């Protein structure tokens, strides 16, 4: 009985240690620190080449999108600092100027954030704008497209 118990404690210990190792290595690899544009600017030298996550607003008028090359550039701001971001690919659904966004990527020596993922931030509870639009108004946007039966 006693021998058994020791054996099981030992087995349990080994399992726990393995689990701990797994968690530790996973965390080391996947922890991404969250910065504001001002913090990135302030620690620019230290952060160079590191993976980080930066949150801010997409500055108005800063979004440039080249459809042919899929090159997307914009400026992320926290009101104090303007941080240039470059990305290859399209922006997520709710991404727009003046709205919040979180960018995951690498801070490169050339002084911009090379984005790997862009997340648009939207509030949980959804609020329509103050002046309601109509369906007809939306429809007018796509007048030049061929009308069709709904697929």
């Amino acid at each position, binding site marked *: 009985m006693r021998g058994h118990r020791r054996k099981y404690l030992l087995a349990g210990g080994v399992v726990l240690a393995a689990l701990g190792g797994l968690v530790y290595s*996973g965390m080391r690899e996947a922890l991404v*620190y969250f910065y504001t544009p001002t913090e990135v600017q302030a620690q620019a030298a230290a952060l160079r080449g590191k993976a980080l996550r930066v949150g801010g607003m997409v500055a108005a008028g800063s979004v440039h999108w080249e459809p042919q090359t*899929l090159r997307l550039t914009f400026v992320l701001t926290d009101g104090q600092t303007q941080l240039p971001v470059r990305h290859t690919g399209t922006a997520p659904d709710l991404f727009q100027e003046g709205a919040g966004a979180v960018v995951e990527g690498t801070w490169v020596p050339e002084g911009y954030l090379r984005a790997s993922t862009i997340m648009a931030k939207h509030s*949980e509870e959804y609020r329509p704008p103050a002046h*309601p639009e109509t369906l007809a108004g939306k429809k007018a946007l796509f007048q030049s497209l061929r009308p069709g039966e709904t697929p």
Partner: protein
Amino acid sequence: MMIASLGHFGLFLALALSVYAGAAAIGGARAGREDWLASSRNAVLAQFCLVTLALLLLEYALLTSDFSLRYVAHNSTRGSLTRYKIAGLWGSLEGSLLLWAWLQSGFAVLVVARYHDRHPAVLPYVQAVLQGISAFFLVVMTFAVNPFTPLAPIPPDGRGLNPLLEVTDMLVHPLLLYLGYVGFSVPFAFAMAALLTGRLSDEWLRLTRRWTILAWVCLTAGIFYGGWWSYRTLGWGGYWAWDPVENASFMPWLTGTAFIHSVMIQERKRMLKVWNLLLITLTFALVIFGTFLTRSGILGSVHAFADGPVGILFLGFLALVLLGALGLIAYRADALKGHGTLDALVSRESAFLLNNVVLLGLCFTVFLGTIFPLLTEALRGTKISVGTPYFNRVSVPLGLALLLLMGIGPLLAWGRASGPQLRRNFLKPALLAAAGTALAALLGLRQAAALAAGFCACFVIGAIAWEFATATRTRARATGESWVQAWAALLLKSRRRYGGLIVHLGVVLAIVGIAMSSLYKVEREATLKPGERLAIGPYTLQFQDLQAAERPTHILVWANLAVSEAGTLRATLRPGQRFYPNQQTPFASVDARYHWQADLYTILSTFERDGSSATFKVLINPMIAWIWLGGGVIVLGVLVAVLPERRLALLTVRAKAQVA
């Protein structure tokens, strides 16, 4: 105004009745007063009627667009389709609490109706615990977030659900999850009743076996359904993001799965009594914790949650559940000493034990990854995130270990496995696994994780097939029945065992699908002018043009993509975007060619308004259909395991009559 007052008053009354029913049940049981117990049972029924009334009132307000209620104004519009008006009930916090409370009351009535004359000793305590849980939800609604809060001035139209939620899936997925969550409160209540009464035999396990399995299968189906929903409609091509909301449903699933397995050891070996009580407590606590996590606003920021009383109430209730259960277990510690011991390291019970350790380990790592950002923000003020890589890194090895155990466990005998028996049982599945892995490698699979998953999966399938085959052969020889008859008779005779094996088969299919779709996904993104092509895998997609159409609630713009394979036209896919009035950004409307080998999945990312070009994201997701198939097989296996004996017997009698 009428509805607001009536509804709120009804909830207060229901709360009072819950408290009374609980107190009368315990008082009646201790004093031996049958009349008190009868009164308590009546109160349970009356409480259910009141909560039903409140639920119907809110639904009525939603259906009639009564915007004098804040909840209605926030969760439906005049123009919403009837089904989404109904679904508005669980569209946000207050309504979903009401739905929860209603299910909780309904389950309490079912429990009373089913057990009051057969198990009079424990039932009053079960009733009291269930009413306690009901009372908690009613307290939250009456004192913190009232679904019947009036709104003035009354707006001309409501806000409506988020367009992402206006899909039929919204009618299925949340209900399945809630049934699972609420279902686990029944075994928990029986466990607490066992502790309170000191009747600590297997009684509570036997009585709640079916409840536990049904709660588990609802939760499982809910999780699978959620993935399927996300995959088909959310437009990012994935089905699981390790989002805290998803993790909140996954954690009780993991402990619930562990519970279902460890219960069998207690039944067989009279061991692990404390462990089982802890597991069901943990499962129920994780259900509450998950709701706290998703409903308190803590995910947005640790600081946001302090604003509302909901989070504090949930945390308080969580503390009560944990401390109460642990206190009771400590109080009964002497009576809970196990009788049996493990005879050998190589035995089915050790495999089950190891399965429990791995499941709990996985649960713990998911828990850690979910709350770590909250902890660091609260303690150190730094914001960090634990990304998908962490979850993938910890879940892949643990998932593979579980898969392997799923194959090994059923092959081992209870008690002590003998050497020759082991060799006999393991040889064929191992050979099959080796052959399967070799075949996979020949077919071009090179990644270690894929080969490991393939090996484990083949081993489990081999073990299950071996188990079915030998048992069927033995029976067919002994009884002279045909193989099919023998197989059906076996399924019936030990439904729990074979139902369980079918569930395992479903899990294997799902894991194979998960592994293949995440390891061998192909993704391309390109901007095309009309007539231009994009090649991906064996397919060529030609962008033809953009079209627009008006739908009742939105404008749909879609692209026509002609898909050809080796020069033959296979299909036209129509990925699009939906433009809602009052929404600044569009919502994706994906289109895919679903196939058991691989899905071709297309997303329209953005386009020029004149139709001169459009940007697409195209993915090939191999074997993703296997995940959904696995989910279906799991549900099927559970049905085999729990369908009432009589009904199944009737079916086979009929089948036999037809054969004869």
